[in-house]
């Protein structure tokens, strides 16, 4: 992450971009969740992003790693459901590992470490039809410096691939084979957020 735009504008802008993409897609996320879960993923994520948005001026004053960690804590406290601890863990761990480091390699390492922490928290692996099925491919794109548009595209593609997967974790796993044929709501929200973040960064820091 570069110093341009200024830290506060960067953090504030990221928060707004994430809040907007979740607000616009909340109904769709809940609809996906109704098919294979308990139907509250959209409202839960909305609640979380609104809580983060309400704290945006405080968060924007923090250095980026600390802001990520604090955003994660806010999500843990507000989202509810499994998504709160999972997204919370992701941001908290990225923040902790970015502290004192900078640059794309440091970010890739922090992301890798954070994704491992999410996998442990959810006791899930690749192919289990969870947000990990977006996070792992996103990390791979970051590692090979795919560029923001490439990362966003890969995230969307990875989310749609969960359509054919059988859920092994979460409420959807209770459905067994009947979970096949639906996009995982957590993977979808993860792809939406990734794409929104990439779009925002691309607008702010054109290559």
């Amino acid at each position, binding site marked *: 992450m570069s110093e341009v735009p200024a830290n506060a504008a960067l953090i504030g802008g990221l928060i707004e971009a994430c809040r907007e993409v979740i607000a616009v897609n909340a109904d769709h996320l809940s609809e996906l969740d109704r098919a294979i879960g*308990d139907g*509250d993923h959209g409202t*839960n994520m909305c*609640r979380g992003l609104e809580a983060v948005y309400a704290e945006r001026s405080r968060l924007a004053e923090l250095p980026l790693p600390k802001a990520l960690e604090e955003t994660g804590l806010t999500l*843990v*406290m*507000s*989202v*509810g*459901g*499994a998504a*709160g*601890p*999972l997204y*919370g*863990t992701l941001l908290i761990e990225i923040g902790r590992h970015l502290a004192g480091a900078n640059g794309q390699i440091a970010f890739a390492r922090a992301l890798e470490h954070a994704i491992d922490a999410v996998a442990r*928290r*959810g006791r899930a692996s690749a192919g289990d039809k969870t947000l990990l099925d977006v996070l792992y491919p996103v990390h791979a794109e970051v590692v090979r410096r795919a560029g923001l548009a490439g990362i966003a595209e890969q995230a969307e593609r990875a989310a749609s691939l969960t359509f054919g997967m059988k859920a092994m*974790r*979460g*409420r959807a796993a209770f459905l067994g084979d009947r979970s096949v044929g639906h996009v995982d709501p957590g993977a979808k929200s993860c792809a939406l957020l990734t794409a929104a973040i990439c779009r925002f960064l691309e607008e702010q820091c054109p290559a």
Partner: protein
Amino acid sequence: MSGMNPKSANVGIVIVSHSPLVAEGAADMVRQMVGDCVPLAWSGGNAEGGLGTHAAGILAAIERAWSDAGVAVFVDLGGAETNSEMAVEMLGEPRSGRVIICNAPLVEGAVMAAAEASGGAALARVVATAEELSP
């Protein structure tokens, strides 16, 4: 509530359900069994009172049922467990080391654990009693 709990010699019990009605009902059943001699608290529903779980509510329940002998937590479905793990971490060391999330059925586990706790059993014994219910 923590720190001024007269029954804190016994292990505490926390019940976490997606439904406030289930959590409260299970707690009622525990209370019927052991009266006031076991610290007991529940957290049910999301932050808005709908079905769900949230870490902040669970953390508050652990505080209410706190015992220096430890706390056994009973959960229903996935998010209840994940959020409980988060709440235990937020409790911080060394207290987090004295909280165990049990792999046991919510109602039966909580009632049996509370019965064990009411006799002054240690946390490991209380948890083992409840977990014997799970194959």
